[in-house]
């Protein structure tokens, strides 16, 4: 949310400009026409700004996509129970008796089918890419039927959910076309068994969109495991969540820890940090370059129009009006670029890409989503550039004396 901090100075600056335009006679149409008289300079600067804004929007979309993939995976009334210090499901083990104890906890919610708690098993398997370029590790989650009910953001789009007693799998739509054998009706080979794909689901881009699901007992059997990995529980009263967590942590017999589901996934976004840091760095540097370019263009504009400006002053426009006028011109120039850049970024919308969760070494896929909100941020960003780059030249313009009108 530091971006909102960045946009804070916009408010007073824009406020002043708007006031200047309304209260004083700022010749805005003159500015607009002047931009078009110097087509080459205007268009090329706007193009450069468009590039920077497009990169800004795409990078933020990447950032958001990564956060979204992890953070939105959780509910604030659910908790993940792991072995103490395990940090990720992959490294965690939960014994059957521990699961029994937890399931009996009165704080847990219940629905028509029973207690909302799912003992789960998380493993990694190797899958080949559909295009034959090799393979990668993907996550497989064994869960109880309650686990499906507890993850209400996940919807079935094709087929049906797996039958807990059979060797069946359901896959995310996003993965179905990227890997071999994951289409509905196909099957994959894993741990010595064939697993037909009986359903396809959509998890709204959350972490679950990178997991294959099946029944936990089947998975454990196939992998010859006797212990679960984790457990997901829902609390009847969300306010009791912190208390529940403390309770689990304090229990010396169990040697477990609990985390709010949202926190659990929130911590994992650390994996995406390097990309975000890199992205922000790139954007910051490019912005600087764009501001210099905008300043250059505006200085040229002012230098070429000293006679005009002198004339405006002779006509009665005051310094502050000239200042506002040129500031507006810079804004118009940069926001043109900003709009173009935001539209350019739209071209990235929907492109799927993936990275690897370093904790589990498994594939995490997400799509670039260029939302209207992001585009608006891009345009706001370009306005910021216009204010920053346009200020000094506008100041320059405001200091041009009336006598310049007479000189050639």
């Amino acid at each position, binding site marked *: 949310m530091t971006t909102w901090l960045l946009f804070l100075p916009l408010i007073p600056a824009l406020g002043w400009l708007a006031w200047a335009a309304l209260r004083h006679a700022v010749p805005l149409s003159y500015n607009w026409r002047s931009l078009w008289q110097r087509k080459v300079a205007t268009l090329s600067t706007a193009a450069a700004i468009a590039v920077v804004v497009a990169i800004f929007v795409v990078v933020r979309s990447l950032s958001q996509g990564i956060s979204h993939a992890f953070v939105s995976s959780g509910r604030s009334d659910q908790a993940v129970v792991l072995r103490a210090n395990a940090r990720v499901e992959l490294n965690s083990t939960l014994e059957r008796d521990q699961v029994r104890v937890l399931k009996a906890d009165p704080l847990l919610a219940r629905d028509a089918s029973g207690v909302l708690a799912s003992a789960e098993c998380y493993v990694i398997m190797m899958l080949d890419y559909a295009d034959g370029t090799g393979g990668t590790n993907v996550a497989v989650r064994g869960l109880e039927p309650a686990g499906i009910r507890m993850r209400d953001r996940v919807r079935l789009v094709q087929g049906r959910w797996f039958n807990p007693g059979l060797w069946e799998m359901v896959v995310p739509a996003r993965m179905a076309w990227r890997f071999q054998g994951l289409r509905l009706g196909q099957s994959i080979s894993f741990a010595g068994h064939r697993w037909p794909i009986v359903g396809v689901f959509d998890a709204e881009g959350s972490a679950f969109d990178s997991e294959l699901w099946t029944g936990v007992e089947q998975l454990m059997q196939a992998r010859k495991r006797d212990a679960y990995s984790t457990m997901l529980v829902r609390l009847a009263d969300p306010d009791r969540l912190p208390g529940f967590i403390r309770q689990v942590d304090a229990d010396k017999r169990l040697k477990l820890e609990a985390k709010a589901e949202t926190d659990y996934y929130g911590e994992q976004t650390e994996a995406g940090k390097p990309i975000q840091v890199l992205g922000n760095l790139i954007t910051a540097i490019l912005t600087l370059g764009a501001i*210099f370019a905008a300043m250059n263009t505006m200085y040229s504009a002012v230098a070429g129009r000293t006679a005009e400006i002198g004339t405006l002053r002779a006509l009665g426009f005051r310094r502050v009006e000239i200042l506002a006028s040129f500031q507006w011109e810079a804004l118009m120039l940069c926001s043109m670029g900003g709009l173009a850049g935001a539209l350019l970024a739209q071209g990235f919308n929907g492109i799927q890409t993936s990275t690897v969760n370093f904790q589990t070494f498994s594939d995490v896929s997400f799509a670039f989503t260029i939302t209207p909100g992001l585009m608006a941020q891009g345009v706001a960003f370009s306005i910021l550039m216009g204010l920053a780059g346009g200020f000094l030249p506008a100041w320059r313009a405001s200091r041009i004396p009336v006598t310049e009108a007479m000189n050639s």
Partner: protein
Amino acid sequence: MKYLHLIWRSLLRSRRRTLLTVLSLGVSVFLVATLQSILGTLDGFAHNPDSANRMVVRHKTSITNVLPFRYGDWLRQQPEVEAVMGLQWFGGIYQDQRNFFANFAVEPEYLVPMFKEEVRGVTEAQVRDFVRDRTGCVVGQALADKFGWKLGTVVPLQGTIFPFTPRLTIRAIFRGKRTADEMALYFPYKHLEESIPRMKGKVGTFWVRVRSADDVPRLIERIDHHFSDALEPTYSETENAFQLEFLKMLGDYATMIHTITAAVLAAILIVTASTMAMTIRERTTEIAVFRAMGFTGRQVLGLLMAEGVLLSAMGGLAGIGLALVTAGAVRGNIGTSIPWLSDFQLQPATLLFCLQATLAVGVLSTFIPAYQAVRRPIVEGLRSL
């Protein structure tokens, strides 16, 4: 060369414009140089010549599965093999997750023979101590420097994958070729086996050192074929290929960086072309005067091109200079999140590319407006004021 002062002075016509152009060029080139160097550094890890005669054997399904320890015996029997070492990624944390560094459980007696090039400066006595002491460890110089460790310091690690907290005494500090190699800790495998029952007789990977690099492909085939029907089948690959797999995990970073590079270069071209067009248009009369004085069209074109190229070269050099100056900071900052980048270096090939690119930008951006200006009839140029 007698025209040099003319060309240089022309850039000073508008010092502000020249400065701003050089700054925006410089900033963009700095970005391109740094990003491409990041790619270059990462690439270097997958093309390490020292890795030519080493390979890695792991479980076919996933790097997170384990293989039986006895596979090592069979591997040692292969004629091409010089040394075999079981290695298990431990992934322990030292104090805080942010202090991340690589730590492994290994068969201690094979560490130095396996990584002859990377684990150096260790005396025989130190190796003996390491082999004998179950709770000992070997760390790299860079890692020791980072935390102020010395021989004899006890390093407590908190296991994440394996639930135990070994307290390891540093028995040796080695120097490697790259900083990334020195940011590692190795402790004896037996310690892990004793503490985690399910790891008894099991290990994550085997590193194999082969006498000759040519033998590697043949050996890979034989190993995987031999274990293909076993309960734990293997997948073998060269060390470089193994590293590459990890790098690929960084996903489409390469594509992203190349896209940004292309976009930035395009933007630079547009901005510089616009600046040169502006500059040249303002000198229409002057250009006509030069030609009236007796400069041929070609000579004037040459002067203008030289000016454009000089301007972009200045921007390019400024960017490269900035990249050189900040390389250390980049290494320090991103080097902690992405371990391979602790060896971040500006690649000479990249810098050369940047220079060539800026010169190309100078030529391309100046040519059209300059050509147009020179083609205009002299009298037209004189007329326009």
